[in-house]
């Protein structure tokens, strides 16, 4: 396997990968689609912030508060630049789940307020839903991009529709004309499936959604960490992703949206720092992104995530993508050699990311994962928060390996080798 990245060199920045597991074995971490490990540079950045400038941002007149604000807003600019965005169009959240909820709540809140004639920002009609309006998702969505929209429907009378899957685990766009129609108000879909590895075609869906004036939300949790992304060029209205899946700390997520979209959205979580004026009777709200960041924010986490962007840019996102493509090709080839193993998702390399789900005939994924774990190999088992996608693919659950920048061919090979022992343990035919 040839790759433009030296995974061994990368690994030196991740001390956790030197630890042993289960009584002495080397740790082979292949669960980066769930969460990645953190390089020392990220840990140091967060710690340095606390040791030198920690204070409440946007508020104090003292030097620490100024430095903290600079650190926080500097981090926002850095992270925005990572995806080609303006700093003011980037909202910090707790995780991608909250980012997607923020978009969904714009609809349920605008609808509830409109029904009572309460104040709404200019342009908020776009977020007011009527009975029978449609929200379109796909059958491969992570629960984070499905349940919030079900909730919107339960509160507004809108109807949820979805793009079904082909047997290969790609979007079946044959009915797109009917699925995106005059009633469609939102189209929210994943750029890359965390269950199947499928990379979805953004352009045709965007074109169809634009034609009917629907708002377009992209779940880029599994793409921002893995390939160069320029949010503005995607043609969508909003993009959500998480920090912890791209070497960043836990507890921070991102929502990018166009200025017009953010400006026309009512607030979600309300309180301090997101207001313009407050009286007991009523309040007015600050401009985005502040409007969506109530309370003391996750400052140290933003600083850490900015350091993660530095780290990834130093490697080069093109190289990260090429490295993952090489690992994916290697893994798919090797998996095909193991009797009883079936990949769940695309088996070719076109429009395919590095999250690779599979089943082992006659053995439950939980048991597969446990046998791998006993060899030090950390994979994820279950429905991967994409339960309907599992059902659509006809499996109750899968085992998933998801390599990243610190993995190499040897990691894949050790996983394959351990997989070879699985069926023996359970005496599967």
């Amino acid at each position, binding site marked *: 396997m040839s790759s433009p990245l030296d995974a061994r060199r990368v690994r030196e920045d991740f001390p956790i990968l030197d630890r042993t597991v*289960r009584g002495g074995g080397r740790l082979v971490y292949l669960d980066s689609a769930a969460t990645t490990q953190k390089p020392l540079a990220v840990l140091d950045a967060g710690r340095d912030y606390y040791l030198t400038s920690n204070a409440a941002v946007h508020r104090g007149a003292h030097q620490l508060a100024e430095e903290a604000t600079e650190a926080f807003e500097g981090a926002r600019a850095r992270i925005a630049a990572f995806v080609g965005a303006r700093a003011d169009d980037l909202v910090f959240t707790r995780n991608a789940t909250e980012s997607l909820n923020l978009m969904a709540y714009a609809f349920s809140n605008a609808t509830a307020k409109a029904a009572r004639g309460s104040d709404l920002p200019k342009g908020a009609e776009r977020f007011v839903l009527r009975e029978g309006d449609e929200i379109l998702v796909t059958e491969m969505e992570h629960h984070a991009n499905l349940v919030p929209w079900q909730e919107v429907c339960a509160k507004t009378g809108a109807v949820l529709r979805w793009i079904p899957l082909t047997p290969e685990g790609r979007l079946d766009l044959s009915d797109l004309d009917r699925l995106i129609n005059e009633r469609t108000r939102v189209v929210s879909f994943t750029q890359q499936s965390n269950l199947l590895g499928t990379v979805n075609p953004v352009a045709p869906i965007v074109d169809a959604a634009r034609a009917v004036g629907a708002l377009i939300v992209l779940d880029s949790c599994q793409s921002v960490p893995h390939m160069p992304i320029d949010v503005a060029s995607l043609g969508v209205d909003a993009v959500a992703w998480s920090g912890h899946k791209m070497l960043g700390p836990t507890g921070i997520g991102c929502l990018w949206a166009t200025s017009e979209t953010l400006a026309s959205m009512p607030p979600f979580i309300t309180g301090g720092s997101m207001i313009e004026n407050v009286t007991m009777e009523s309040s007015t709200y600050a401009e985005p992104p502040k409007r969506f960041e109530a309370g003391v924010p996750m400052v140290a986490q933003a600083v850490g995530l900015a350091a993660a962007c530095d780290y990834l840019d130093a490697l080069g996102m093109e190289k990260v993508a090429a490295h993952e493509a090489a690992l994916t090709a290697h893994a798919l080839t090797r998996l095909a050699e193991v009797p009883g193993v079936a990949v769940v998702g695309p088996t070719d390399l076109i429009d395919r990311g590095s999250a690779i789900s599979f089943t082992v005939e006659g053995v*439950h994924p*939980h*048991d597969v994962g446990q046998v791998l774990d006993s060899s030090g190999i950390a994979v994820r088992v279950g429905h991967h928060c994409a339960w309907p996608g*599992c059902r659509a693919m006809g499996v109750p659950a899968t085992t998933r390996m998801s390599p990243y920048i610190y993995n190499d061919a040897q990691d894949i090979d050790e996983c394959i080798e351990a997989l070879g022992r699985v069926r023996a*343990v*359970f005496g599967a035919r």
Partner: protein
Amino acid sequence: MEDLYQEIILDHYRNPQGRGLREPFEAQVHHVNPTCGDEIDLRVHLEERDGTTYVEDVSYAGQGCSISQASASVMYDSIAGRTLDEALEALARFQEMVQSKGEIAGDEETMGDAVAFAGVAKYPARVKCALLPWMAWKDAMVQATEGDDRD
């Protein structure tokens, strides 16, 4: 790993006892393990004889990992045909053992094959698998006895 996948467990997994949904029953429940998608449908049939309640039958169907499947089979062996009080005791002993983080080994004398699950206690993620059928049974049993004068 051998402490988890005891031969007894694998035997029950390969040859489950009491599997299948049967009549009659007083209560039926559906339980899932939301993290992995394991599911079980379980029916309980109680009968009172001479003032004593018996667990006449526990019948079940579902899909899941070796641990949850074997646990259902062992549970069937441990409680079907026993008095309700004995069954409740078996539940208590099993639960205590698997939630002990390895501190309670379990007593083969009283627990039978169920002691094979002692090793599960060291794998917190699997404790829920082992408990899935037992919790389903507990739930069904409560539903079946609801409105009874027992407490």
